[in-house]
């Protein structure tokens, strides 16, 4: 099996300062990763076909964009378009809507496909994909996943975006009719802009405890080693590192 049909899901982004519609960088990276694998992609957007953000994706290499409306369940309408696809690529997080990062997971569960998140590089080997996965603390992991699959591209993926105006003029956008089904949503309501409040355990103190807390400073800081020669002090540091499993010798 080879990679015949790759679908990339793109969403509309917005400029964080002016609020103007533009492409979402995370999704553009997914588009470019897909273009590096095969030249012709299926690009899907759930939303409005008139959105100026879609013009950016045409310029960034999508020759054709299929738009499905969102008046039903977004996952259902996208899944209907994604039958017989070998690989589905998405960005990590959208810049609009709930941006919970859940869509690829819901889609993979719906289509019953394996999913790999945090992909930095993708290479094909037979009917498997080899993916370099991002882990924090400078670690990377190589994993292999069976096709067909859903792959979420990490924002640090090393691909270059290339904006070509001619492609924007040549590309076209098709709007598809709605498929309707139940809406799958947690009922969110927008709150007034404010700073989030941190959850703290309520502390019940007597008057004496409060007074003592005000006049004595809490003894902060850890162990202080004053005694011994250099070698002993170095041993103390090594023991600390060993105790917390920070070194393995």
């Amino acid at each position, binding site marked *: 099996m080879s990679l015949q049909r790759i679908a990339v899901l793109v969403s509309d982004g917005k400029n964080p300062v002016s609020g103007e519609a533009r492409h979402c960088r995370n999704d553009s990276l997914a588009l470019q990763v897909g273009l590096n694998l095969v030249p012709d992609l299926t690009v899907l957007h759930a939303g409005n076909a008139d959105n100026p953000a879609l013009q950016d994706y045409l310029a960034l290499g999508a020759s054709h964009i299929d738009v499905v409306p969102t008046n039903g369940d977004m996952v259902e309408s996208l899944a209907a378009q994604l039958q017989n696809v070998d690989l589905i690529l998405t960005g990590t997080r*959208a*810049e609009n809507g709930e*941006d*919970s990062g859940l869509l690829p*997971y819901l889609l993979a*569960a*719906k289509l019953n496909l*394996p*999913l*790999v*998140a*945090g992909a930095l590089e993708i290479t094909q080997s037979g009917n*498997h994909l*080899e993916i370099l996965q*991002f*882990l*924090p*603390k*400078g*670690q*990377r*992991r*190589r*994993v*292999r996943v069976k096709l067909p699959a859903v792959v979420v591209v990490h924002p640090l993926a090393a691909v270059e975006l290339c904006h070509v105006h001619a492609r924007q003029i040549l590309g076209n956008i098709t709007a598809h009719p709605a498929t309707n089904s139940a809406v799958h949503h*947690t*009922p*969110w*309501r*927008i*709150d007034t*802009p404010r700073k*989030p409040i*941190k*959850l*703290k*355990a309520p502390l*019940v103190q007597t008057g004496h405890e409060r007074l003592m807390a*005000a*006049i*004595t400073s809490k*003894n*902060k*800081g*850890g162990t*202080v*080693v004053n005694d011994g020669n*250099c*070698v002993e*002090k*170095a*041993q103390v*540091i*090594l023991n*600390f*590192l060993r105790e*917390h*499993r*920070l070194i393995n*010798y």
Partner: protein
Amino acid sequence: MSRVNPMRPQQTTSSGLKRMVLQANVKPEEAHAPKPIRSPAKPKTRVLVIAHSDRGALDDHARQALAAAAILADAETTVTVLVLGELHENLSSAGADEVMVLPELDFQQFQPDVELASLLAVIKSMQPMRIFMPDNLIGDGDLGRRLIAHSQLTTATQVVEIDTKHVASYQAGCSVLAVCNLPEIVLLAANAVDTDLPFSAKATHVDAVELNHASGEYQDLGLQTSSAAEIALEEADFIVSAGNGVQNLSTLETLALQLDAAIGASRVVVDDGKLPRDKQIGATGKTVSATSYLAIGISGAVQHLQGIKDCRHVIAINRDSSAPIIKRADLSVIGDAEDIMQALIGEIAKAKGANA
């Protein structure tokens, strides 16, 4: 503002004047009365906290999720924590009533199918009314989303505010704060909860479930660790940092090489031109989140401490025992930086030799 304790140690001079004794052997703080135990005697409901461990311990983010569950639990609710990966610490001070450990499901192994199947088995047997997970990059955020996709429960991800009634998270590209009622699966963002608890818990061990078999869709081809010198300072796991007390930078470089650590610096060292500007840690430089931070000859100005506030273990080597870094450090060694660095290099070489 902290005030001077009027009852601090004092002595009366021969002329009858009271003199406060500086540097007196201050009594070690009286042993704290043990915190009351929160664990319910007759539990009726249960909440589940799921987190991967890192090096046999739960990190701050995972402890915040655990603290959130413990704070929100009422008197008849058990807080059960499911630790994926090895666990070598006691979680009673973190608020766990029951602990289940699945040591085979370490975050460094990529096996989402096994993890999800085992998780669903645990949930089926325990029937928790709510699930808390840290929304992090070491696998919990990924596993939580897989769980959400496979369940019909109400959910919220990247939760920045939580209380008994509702949760809030940033949406639409972090431009609005949206709230909803407390859902059944909560993926907590970092620093949404204070981990200081006025109670402790029993932390009894529960027998682990049997692991499911892999579906064969995923295969782990191994980790790629790059040497500390190649990665950005913000991503480094071990940082050796130089301050004004370091005379000989080549010794520090040797030490960093021995420990496979990245090199950082305080502002003074960078201003002197001894290290490039991109090595500076602090308010004007970089904010680092290393697991271990070795501060050598750094007094610890506020700006520098701000840059290392996310570091888990801070070790200080300093000549001055009253420097501010001593208060921040988990281990402070007082002495000459150069001598201790040389001794440390020797000891590490010896330990590595004995190990090989």
